[in-house]
């Protein structure tokens, strides 16, 4: 019986097929799904912020792209995953409101996507699909069996990347 594991905001989980992992309502956060193509272990992390060095309270690794992604890879390796066989799919990083309070050049969503790409590049894990940006929330489900990453948004057809 396949189980669906839920990942909250600033949270992560790993599983083996036929189990699946889901995270609901990604706004400017990014959901990074990583999978070993051969032994099919897969994991999902829901990061909120780009950089753990920018803030004081940074004990939760899953909160940041720069610490959450390496931690997810470590957990996949502990389950027998091999880094050179891993591939990633990413979704989220939207800009929910036309303005953000801090007058930074890029929105948090854009910065999260950028930091995600940087962290994955540092680990030499290729991004094989992405659905990022725009101005709407996304609910995602990751199927490690096939590598499918299903994306749902309000008033839009379901998309699989």
């Amino acid at each position, binding site marked *: 019986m396949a189980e669906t594991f839920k990942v909250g905001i600033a949270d992560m989980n790993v599983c083996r097929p036929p189990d699946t992992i889901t995270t609901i309502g990604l706004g400017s956060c990014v959901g990074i799904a990583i999978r070993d193509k051969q032994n099919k272990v897969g994991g999902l992390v829901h990061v909120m912020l780009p950089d753990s060095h*920018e803030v004081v309270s940074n004990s939760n690794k899953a909160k940041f792209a720069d610490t959450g992604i390496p931690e997810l890879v470590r957990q996949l390796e502990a389950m027998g995953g091999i880094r050179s066989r891993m591939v990633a799919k990413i979704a989220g990083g939207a800009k929910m409101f036309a303005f953000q309070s801090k007058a930074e050049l890029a929105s948090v969503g854009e910065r999260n996507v950028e930091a995600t790409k940087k962290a994955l590049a540092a680990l030499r894990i290729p991004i094989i699909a992405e659905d990022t940006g725009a101005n709407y929330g996304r609910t995602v489900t990751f199927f490690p069996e096939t590598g499918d990453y299903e994306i749902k948004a309000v008033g839009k057809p379901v998309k699989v990347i």
Partner: protein
Amino acid sequence: MAELSIDDLSSQYFDVLKEIGNIGAGNATTALSTMLGGKVDMKVPKVRLMEFKDVGTTMGGEEQIVAGIYLVVNGDINGSIMFVQRKESAKAMIGKLMGMPSEDPENFSEMELSALKEIGNIITGAYLNSLATLTNLTIYPSIPDVCIDMAGAILSVPAIEFGAVADKLLLIETDFTDDEDMSGYFILVPDAESYEKILHALGVM
């Protein structure tokens, strides 16, 4: 760099923030009843300090469709304020303001979105006014922006701003009642330095 974190708030500070929540919500109710031209009752607001990961579930699940009205504040306090309502409550309030029920319960027309922004403007304005009066600080709100989407996605916006300083968030739940449910939630997000300013101004630090 501010030393204070919301995680360290003692019960005394929390009581003060709670009281501001009460008064603010009271003023917002008065403003709302004036705008809607009728009596609007308010239950005692519930003020909670909660983990950001639990916020979505409070509003009926992270996939619940909500309307979020978001404003940036500047002046002596920098930060943002958000007023969140379930889609149904937002529709009920818009219907009251426009004097007729919505033709489409699922989607929001341009006119309805504009009405919602105005409601948000008045409610958050009343709330910020009481905060400014109590603290004697100057607060300038921006024009509001509205977004209708999954609760999880909308709430991640203030959660992220809070997340940069702490893992918890201050949520003020206000039940505006009439014959229809028009409840909503205020989320006030001052930056860390503004928190200190508010508490100093109120004489608790």
